[in-house]
């Protein structure tokens, strides 16, 4: 077994935690708990960014860790919870999710992502290159969640989880993106969540439900 530094091992543990949270999100029916899981994912992401910042001595990563903490752990879950309260769907859940088959598809995706990342990460030089596979798996699992879920709120949560995966890929494999880009993405996400909120109200106005499958049906009258 190659001897890794403690920091790299900790990063591996955090990456594994991220993957575990992704699967928990895939299996979670209640929307409120999904938002809590999203906040936890943000927390793990903050910790991993801080870890990379301290080990690689990159001061700009401290800023992005702070940004992650504020935006992904507190602000966004708070906005989503408030939206749910105002929409009156606090106890909402997606009952039609077939969890065992989702799990199996998710497992296939993880194998695919790991296989895909292997040749790429062998070219990289950073200590943490092996986590690219996990980051890709997190992205694909969030995709799967967006595809499989029916409700608008859960799809937005899937979208945010996907962004978390992308962010993790960026910090762990290339020590983060330039600050301008990160600020831009953070702002985009925030605006995106606001716009989604407006969409939620519009969709509910039109269809009396947030089930997106109703958007697929043609209008009869």
């Amino acid at each position, binding site marked *: 077994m190659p001897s890794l530094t403690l920091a790299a*091992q900790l990063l591996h543990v955090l990456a594994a935690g991220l*993957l575990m949270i992704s699967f928990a999100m895939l299996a979670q029916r209640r929307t409120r708990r999904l938002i809590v899981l999203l906040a936890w994912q943000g927390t793990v992401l903050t910790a991993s960014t801080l870890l990379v910042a301290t080990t690689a001595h990159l001061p700009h990563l401290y800023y992005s860790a702070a940004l992650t903490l504020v935006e992904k752990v507190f602000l966004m879950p708070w906005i989503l919870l408030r939206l749910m309260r105002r929409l009156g769907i606090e106890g909402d859940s997606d009952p039609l999710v077939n969890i065992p088959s989702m799990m*199996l598809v998710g497992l296939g995706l993880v*194998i695919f992502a790991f296989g895909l990342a292997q040749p790429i990460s062998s070219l990289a030089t950073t200590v943490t290159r092996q986590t690219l596979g996990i980051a890709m798996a997190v992205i694909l699992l969030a995709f799967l969640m967006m595809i499989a879920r029916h409700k608008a709120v859960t799809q937005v949560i899937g979208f945010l989880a996907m962004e978390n995966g992308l962010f993790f890929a960026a910090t762990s494999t290339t020590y983060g993106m330039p600050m301008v880009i990160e600020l831009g993405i953070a702002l985009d996400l925030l605006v995106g969540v606001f716009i989604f909120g407006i969409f939620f109200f519009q969709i509910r106005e039109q269809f009396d439900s947030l089930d997106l499958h109703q958007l697929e049906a043609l209008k009869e009258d």
Partner: protein
Amino acid sequence: MNAFAFLGQLAGVVLVVALAPVLAGWVAQCRAWLQNRSAPPLLQPYRSVRKLFRKDAALATYASPLFRAAPYVVFAAMAMAAAIIPSVTTDLPMARVADAIALVGLFATARVFIALAAMDIGSVFGSMGARREMMIGFLAEPALLMVLFNVFLMFGSTALPTVVEGSLSMSGLVLHPSLAFAGVAFVMVLLAENARIPIDNPGTHLEVTMIHEAMVLEYSARHLALIEWASWLKLLNYACIGFALFVPWGIAPHKAGPLVLLLAVALLVIKLAVAGAVLAVIETVSAKLRIFRAPEFLSMAFLLAVLGLLVHLLLQS
């Protein structure tokens, strides 16, 4: 390998068999405290066993010899399993014959016999319980094997004593993310296999929710005592497997002195006390799942264990 080692192993088995009712009593006590009830005494399982052994066994008219043999087979299988799990020391002469895959087989043997005995009488509850038990079993067993493979992959052996010695000899702090996955999966399998709350309620008297209780409804007296004892022993065996896989510190290595062995016993008791309290907390905070949610629960466990394998292959390559 000598006679002394065999005697030591026998003493270990006796110790574990004797500790099993205490663990069950401890878990019941913790649960009672958490639920603001007055707790039964720690040795209550012993008292009920003594009471049951004194009674006369009542058998159904159409009970076959299988029905009468099953409690002994189940108890013997659990005692055998205790003999190959390194709970106090890794110096187990009998463990060379059977590795951990055989251990899973022993658990399966016990399960099949108790299910057959439950169906033997022909009562509705018995066969319902047996069918449910087999459903849980066939889902939990692959998950347990995958958890074990996680650790076997790390140390290149399927024998639990070798695994324990391997992880004891590891120097320095090495974090294994894959073990986190395996650990969570193992706890889920433990809950399912030992008829614990998210899957089955050990204290239930409500027919619709029973699994284990439904199977042993027809048993009485010494047969019931043996079956109950075997189920406590099963819980303790699972706990010891968990210690061997995830927290092996304190298990005495080969050719250890008597002082080290005593220390190992003391540590085992402490670990069991902690594990029992944690189990009681898990059981108190979680609600029982509908029986049709059990496959979801166990497929989650299987999946976590397989993820552990994948993560191990990705990160340690």
